[in-house]
């Protein structure tokens, strides 16, 4: 098919080939520190990972970061989309304002939050101090227990708008006679929400869950700019681990093995969401 040829050529070259190549590399011990010796090691890169505490730590932090942020994104986006589905004065302005975080580059977002969390002059310290919640300035990103949450907060702020738009699209597709019928049947506001609104939002939720989970488990920029995996290893997530392993330790083989595992996990999760929440894409 002539029309399809360009797309297939492009995707073959820029997506399929790299992935196949990534699998290939993952079977070799490829270290740029000794570029001429790249022995085939079979599954060793993978089996090494199984016993690697740093790897499992990174996996665990990725899972908690994703759980926290995706849950928050879905809940906030649900509330905001319900709000935007109402008719009120200023609705259009609000929905335009909502686009701002979505359009902001991730790096600019990271920069902005780094400035907000700044330990000497940041807005978070300033605000909490003025409101008397804290009596001295805190080193927010230096706190092992809070770091992951603070990064998640920056991530959620950036992601809520798109999730909201996706959910709003589902909400708008609900025919109004469904609500009329439910009213005639004497359904309360809550019953209408549970039995009419929520089921209709399923496709929207499916998209949000797939998209945001994928974004969360592969997210890199905020970790790079805000904490570089620190303090200690508090924000050492999988994407950061792959970056360090590949481009700082120059260990391409095991980096590729991890990337490949991450790709498989992402794919499996998306499949799971599609099976549980939707019929088809």
């Amino acid at each position, binding site marked *: *098919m*002539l*029309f*399809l040829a360009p*797309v*297939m050529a*492009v*995707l073959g*070259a820029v*997506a399929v080939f*790299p*992935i196949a*190549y*990534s699998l290939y*590399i993952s079977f070799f011990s490829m270290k740029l520190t000794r570029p001429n010796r790249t022995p085939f090691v079979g599954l060793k890169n993978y089996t090494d990972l199984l016993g690697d505490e740093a790897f499992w730590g990174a996996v665990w932090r990725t899972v908690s970061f994703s759980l926290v942020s995706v849950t928050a994104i879905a809940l906030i986006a649900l509330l905001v989309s319900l*709000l935007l589905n109402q008719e*009120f004065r*200023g609705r259009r302005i609000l929905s*335009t304002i*909502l*686009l*701002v975080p*979505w*359009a*902001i*580059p*991730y*790096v*600019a977002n*990271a*920069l*902005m939050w780094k*400035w907000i969390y*700044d330990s000497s*002059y940041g*807005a978070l310290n*300033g605000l909490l*101090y003025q409101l008397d919640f804290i009596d001295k300035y805190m080193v927010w990103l230096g706190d092992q227990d809070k770091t992951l949450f603070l990064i998640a907060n920056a991530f959620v*702020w950036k992601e809520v708008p798109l999730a909201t738009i*996706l959910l*709003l*699209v589902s909400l708008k597709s609900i025919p109004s006679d469904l609500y009329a019928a439910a*009213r*005639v049947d004497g359904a309360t506001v809550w019953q209408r929400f549970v039995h009419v609104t929520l089921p209709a939002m399923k*496709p929207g939720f499916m998209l949000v869950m797939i998209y945001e989970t*994928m974004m969360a488990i*592969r997210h*890199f*920029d905020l970790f*790079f*700019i805000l904490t570089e995996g620190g303090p200690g290893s508090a924000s050492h997530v999988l994407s950061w681990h*792959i970056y360090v392993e*590949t*481009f700082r330790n120059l260990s*391409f083989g095991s980096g*590729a093995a991890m*990337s490949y595992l991450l*790709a498989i996990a992402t*794919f499996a999760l998306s499949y799971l969401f599609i099976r549980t929440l939707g019929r088809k*894409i």
Partner: protein
Amino acid sequence: MSDMPITPPVDTIDYRRRQKIGRIVQRLVIFASAIVVAAYVLAPVSWLVSSAFQTETEIVSIPPHWIPEEPTLRNFEAIFTAGNDEPVTYDTRSGTDPAAGDFIPSTAENLLPSMANSLIVATLVVILNLLVGVPAAYAIAKIRFWGRNASVYFILITRVIPDIALVVPFFLVIRKLGMLDTLGSLVITYLAITVPFTVFILIQYFEGLPDELDKAARVDGCSRFQALIKVFLPLSMPSLVAVVLFTFLTSWNEFLLALMFTQTSASQTLPILLASFTSDFTVSFSFLNAAGVLAVVPPVIVAIVFERYIVSGLTAGAVKG
């Protein structure tokens, strides 16, 4: 509400009054939540903007000045005049202690070129996306052929792969092609990220247009290609705009791949330069914030201008099925 009796009840409850109060309460709740949402979204950005207009002495005040007391444009001035003369620092201008962070990085002069790089890459990616994406989406939506479903799944699967998994193979390939530190390397790799999405959105939209259009065009003697150009493209403007917008923003904002493949100002994009500022501990905060504002302005303007197409473009793409 409609389950209330229509005839006025005999007892003393005034239903009409109750309904009115209910409506006012509802209004108030909606209004209050709208304010909360707007504040949540705008507060961080406003602070970034506010600090971009503060002087270096004001920006380090404790507690922070939420609104600049002596607003200044000198941070932006520093960016736009950087590279004209000697490396400019606020230090040379105001005579304060450079250790206090009153410093403009020497790479500041790369800021405007990096914006140009971002713009070039994003524009090329948008054009290439339309060139390969539109015919493919048309074919999948309107032509029955063997392997049609398989093509859809193939395209979807390529988007599930995390960018980080593409980094290593891309790096090796691009190094081998001698394309490291060129804009071309970014254009190629961004296609991998954007094309599946483009095709996906357009398929949904084309499928929504009636098949009869296609048939009528063919009866009138159009080739498949002419039918696509003359009949379908004009009708699919909203989804095309949505695609352009998404692709542009993705390319403008991308960071990870650009971080790997660019090294000098010849190919560095805006996000990379911005990130390089943040790792410099002596950098001026107010300068950094001004740079941040510059990075935010173009994509936000683009998004707001095309705002109404986003939902219609997504409606085409999202609610089917």
